[in-house]
């Protein structure tokens, strides 16, 4: 029970929530604003993480150059996705995006020499070099920790992630209030009406995908920095579904709903670890992991049934009706 009050544990939960915030912000732009059903979102996170790691370890780039390059790579991948699939009707698009994200995962799993294969980045260049992309970050994080006299590494990472997450949230919120954002929302409402008013719908959708994927790439960077080693299994479709859940939980179409949704999701997910009462006590810890995911699934269903506008959404502006 003492873990429940452990600062480190909750700092960790906070970090993960921060990463999910950045990831879901991307989805908010793609779906919440532009109405695109991207169910392969996690692939762009993977591209961000892997691109940075590969550039640093295999090509010897400085991490501070590899990071923005990775974000650009994610954005470019988003554009490629769009060029190939935006002509499809919404349901086909959704299915194809899942397929594409699985392709990315398969390639990452099987191209050992490029990505370290299924064992992950620990394999990238042999044991002692694999942490190279992380050591530059660790040094920065340690400096940050020292400069602010923080107690632990987790707290340092927490602050860094959330600083970025909140800035990005603010930027996304601002962007939707521009004329550009207005066109996106119009596209979500009625594409043909938007076209009849002179808006190049295809171009805007591509932009939404590029930005959304870039954000996923940034999330991927923080994922790589937080977890040091990662593997393709970390980027399973389940993560995309978590992002969707957070999106709905917070409220579709409102940028500031994303951090709220991510925090609540984090608390639900982590908090269920500590339920020391029946029926949870009937299960051993391995089984509780299944139970936790079950709870997540039930929460998602419950949201759709009872509160589709999420925590912060308004009923009239319901996208999920």
């Amino acid at each position, binding site marked *: 029970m003492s873990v429940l009050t452990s600062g480190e544990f909750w700092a960790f939960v906070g970090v993960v929530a921060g990463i999910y915030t950045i990831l879901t912000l991307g989805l908010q732009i793609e779906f919440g604003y532009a109405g695109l*059903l991207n169910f392969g979102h996690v692939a762009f996170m993977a591209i961000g993480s892997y691109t940075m790691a590969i550039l640093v370890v295999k090509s010897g780039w400085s991490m501070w150059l590899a990071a923005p390059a990775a974000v650009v790579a994610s954005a470019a991948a988003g554009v490629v996705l769009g060029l*190939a*699939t935006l*002509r*499809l*009707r*919404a*349901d*086909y698009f*959704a*299915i*194809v995006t*899942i*397929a*594409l994200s*699985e*392709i990315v995962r*398969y*390639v990452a799993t*099987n191209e050992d020499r490029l990505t370290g294969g299924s064992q992950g980045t620990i394999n990238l260049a042999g044991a002692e070099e694999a942490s190279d992309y992380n050591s530059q970050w660790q040094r920065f994080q340690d400096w940050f920790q020292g400069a602010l006299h923080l107690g632990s590494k987790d707290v340092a990472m927490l602050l860094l992630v959330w600083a970025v997450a909140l800035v990005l949230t603010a930027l996304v919120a601002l962007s939707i209030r521009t004329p550009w954002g207005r066109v996106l929302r119009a596209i979500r409402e009625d594409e043909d009406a938007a076209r009849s008013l002179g808006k190049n719908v295809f171009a805007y959708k591509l932009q939404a995908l590029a930005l959304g994927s870039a954000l996923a790439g940034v999330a991927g960077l923080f994922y790589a920095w937080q977890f040091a080693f990662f593997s393709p299994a970390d980027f399973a479709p389940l993560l995309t*579904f978590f992002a*969707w859940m957070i999106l*709905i939980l917070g409220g579709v179409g409102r940028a500031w709903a994303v951090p709220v949704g991510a925090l609540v999701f984090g608390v639900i997910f982590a908090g269920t670890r500590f339920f020391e009462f029946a029926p949870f006590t009937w*299960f051993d810890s391995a*089984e509780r992991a*299944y*139970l936790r*995911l*079950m709870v*997540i*699934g*039930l*929460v*998602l*269903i419950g949201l*759709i*049934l009872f509160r*589709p506008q999420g925590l912060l959404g308004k009923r009239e502006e319901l*996208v*999920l*009706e």
Partner: protein
Amino acid sequence: MFLQLLANGLVTGAVYAIAAVGVSLVYGILRIVHFAYGDLMTFGAFVAVTFDTTLGLGMIVATAAAMVAASALSVGLDFALWRPLRARRANFMSLFLASIGLALVLRQAIFLAWGPQPRAFDVDPFKVYTIGSVRLSGAQVIAIVVAVVAIVLVGLLLSFTTLGRTMRAVADDRSLAAVAGIDTGRVVLATWVLSGALAAIAGVLAGLVQSTFDPNFGFTLLLPVFAAVVLGGIGNPYGALAGGFLLGIVTELSTWEGFGGGVDPVYKPVVAFAVLIVVLLARPQGILGRARLV
């Protein structure tokens, strides 16, 4: 080798085809992209394996039990989840997301009930049938036979019974069907029963063919099944059949050395997805789908 791959492809294709018909019916009639269908297949396989190995009742009883269980579960879920959503006039997105939530719940439930260890059916692994240059395991032969029977029966149902024709009418045009006075309640029930049974069959066959399977395997199959459905034109059960077989065959054949060395077998699922994407680029409505002015 080519013929062997073709035979393997037919087997894989059969599994895809049966599942694809189920998915297609659910989509066509209920407008639900059933993301939990893979886990329903897993459920069928696990129920069957319990009846087969744990209770020792043999494959036929096991499959029957699986079909009953999966149909019952599907119908139960209609009452618990889909009906309330229909009452709220949920749109495509809501239904899709609800099915994702359902998939999560179902899979974890299977993990909880049966545990994570891989299972296998009680089939003689050494029994091999040889036709010319093609060798088929006992499991594969059973799969083909059962698949053919199932497909023929479903085809007969859809083409020649009133219920079947009604189902196809509703799948084709829901609002029109309602106006024509079709009892959509009965059709909905029939859809869940049939798609549940098909999921069970597909799950059992897949488990047979794969020799061992764990609670995740249904979902792994689901994406190629979706690909088959989209390929054949969504909502069209015959298209789904064709799509399933096509994908199964193309996927297996792609590993043939005659095609410039052949694709690494580990990339077979990628081939399925690649085929889907290429076809959709050229023909966005799918092979047998109708070009709708959306």
